[in-house]
């Protein structure tokens, strides 16, 4: 049975986001909670997550954060490693069904009620003292502090592999964002994304001044054009590998010429 998570009401999401700015740095732990009176569950369709499960999820993510310099300012490597580890923890431990994970108010609850301290640590305020709303409110699930990690784990996870999450560390933040933001053409097809990431991992050597990132960007642009008239969803894994390798070879030739 699916696990249902609390959905933070929109007005409360706005209020708590405004409140974030009033809490002194380092004190956001004091406003963390496993319950909000302004959060509701879906009327039916699953089992409501218990406060104990929410507390355990909070502790797990806090523990990952602590290993990566929480509550002190993390460097880029620590942030990236936190994201990879948390994606896995969140996906495994939350047992959230894809339908529930597509509810942005669920993510607003996680960032603003359950884990505000970790959220502001991972996405601190800008130089003007403002937090970026997308990272907290769930207005864009590909940018939310936790929703984007769950989605990455969901799309990149391959249960056939010894380590189902082996593809999570392959791409950096910017490159993964580049794929996940193209939800309709690319990220909507997990098998295609896995084929793209594998191809990049197995053939990422730069040649003739071609940067690895440029190769990836060009490959994504070409595959995106193909998906306008080619159905990649029904393709077998072997067909996808062949398609992606072919496109990658074309890109390499184009960049060399």
């Amino acid at each position: 049975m699916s696990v249902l998570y609390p959905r933070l009401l929109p007005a409360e999401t706005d209020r708590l986001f405004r409140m974030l700015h009033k809490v002194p740095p380092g004190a956001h732990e004091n406003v963390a909670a496993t319950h909000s009176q302004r959060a509701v569950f879906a009327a039916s369709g699953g089992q409501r997550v218990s406060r104990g499960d929410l507390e355990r999820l909070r502790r797990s993510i806090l523990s990952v954060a602590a290993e990566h310099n929480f509550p002190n300012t993390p460097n880029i490597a620590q942030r990236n490693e936190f994201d990879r580890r948390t994606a896995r923890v969140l996906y495994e431990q939350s047992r959230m069904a894809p339908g529930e994970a597509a509810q942005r108010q669920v993510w607003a609850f996680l960032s603003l009620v359950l884990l505000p301290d970790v959220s502001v640590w991972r996405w601190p305020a800008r130089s003007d003292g403002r937090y970026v709303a997308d990272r907290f409110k769930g207005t864009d699930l590909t940018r939310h502090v936790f929703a984007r990690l769950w989605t990455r784990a969901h799309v990149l996870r391959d249960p056939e592999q010894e380590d189902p999450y082996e593809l999570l560390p392959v791409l950096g933040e910017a490159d993964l964002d580049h794929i996940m933001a193209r939800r309709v053409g690319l990220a909507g097809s997990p098998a295609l994304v896995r084929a793209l990431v594998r191809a990049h991992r197995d053939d990422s050597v730069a040649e003739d001044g071609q940067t690895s990132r440029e190769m990836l960007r060009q490959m994504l642009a070409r595959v995106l054009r193909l998906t306008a008239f080619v159905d990649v969803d029904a393709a077998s894994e072997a067909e996808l590998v062949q398609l992606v390798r072919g496109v990658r070879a074309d890109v390499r030739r184009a960049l060399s010429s």
Partner: protein
Amino acid sequence: MIVRAWPYRRPQERVYAEAWRLGSDAMGDLLPHGLPHWDCNTDVTMSRLIQIDVNGVEEDCGLPADVLFRLSVRCWPSTSLIRRTLFSERFRACGGKTAVELTVTATGEELGGRLIVETLLELGEQLPYTDPFVAWRPGSVLWSDQVGVHLEGAAGLLPVAPVSFREAGLPERSAWYVSMDGGDWQQAAMGSLLVLLNTDNAAVRKAMEAERTGSIAPTPLWAFLEVDIVTDLVGRALDDDAFAESEIADGDVDGGEELTMAGLVRALIRTYLARPAESLDDSINRLRDERRRDPSRFRAYVHAGIGFPREVLT
């Protein structure tokens, strides 16, 4: 309007697809526009018959005889946009025409919002590239059609949550609260709107029980709620200059993309408030003027459009 220019020839009226039916019986009830009793524990099974004039497709598309085709069905919810292939089978022309009875099931816990189901006839194998206007890549889409089913949170189906108003800090004796995000009309309607039903209110509890079991006479409460939602949502949009700007930017409501708040308001105006032969822009301008001049008259238009109080009378 978007017109897709295909890089290869496609068949003309060679695929005859019957409408999707709900359940596994291809002669059963037609797939409705919405499934009001759906929740994420409910899988959606549907079926249809398809006849393909395979030789005709080969001829129209310039494909060689006995080429391999693939028939597939994929679906995705408007919420996650993650696609799932529900059916896929390769076949060759055998006797010129082929008929297939498709039965597919979409898993409930992967769904939400609006479910889009697409049936595709594709090239099933790679061909040598000989003619620039003939499909050669495996998976090249030769024919397709799409249907959409509202499961929750779009058009007339809004997300509803029962909640104790006493615990939620809302007025204890009220019946419901239509919770809306303000300001950004380009936000997805799904998630921006939530109708909270007060479980502390005995009449609401009774009406919810009647809805759940279908065992008690219909209640007028839901008709009142419908009026409240349309009046609040459309009224708020008409009062907001940002909505006027969003009217141009908003996409097609039925385009398969996530429905925005602006799209939902426009759909409500088209459904309930537009006059015959009146354009949407004219309806919006008329209603905006009417609301500024006389809000009560605007509410009367909503009553008239919805047919309120039809449930009270039945």
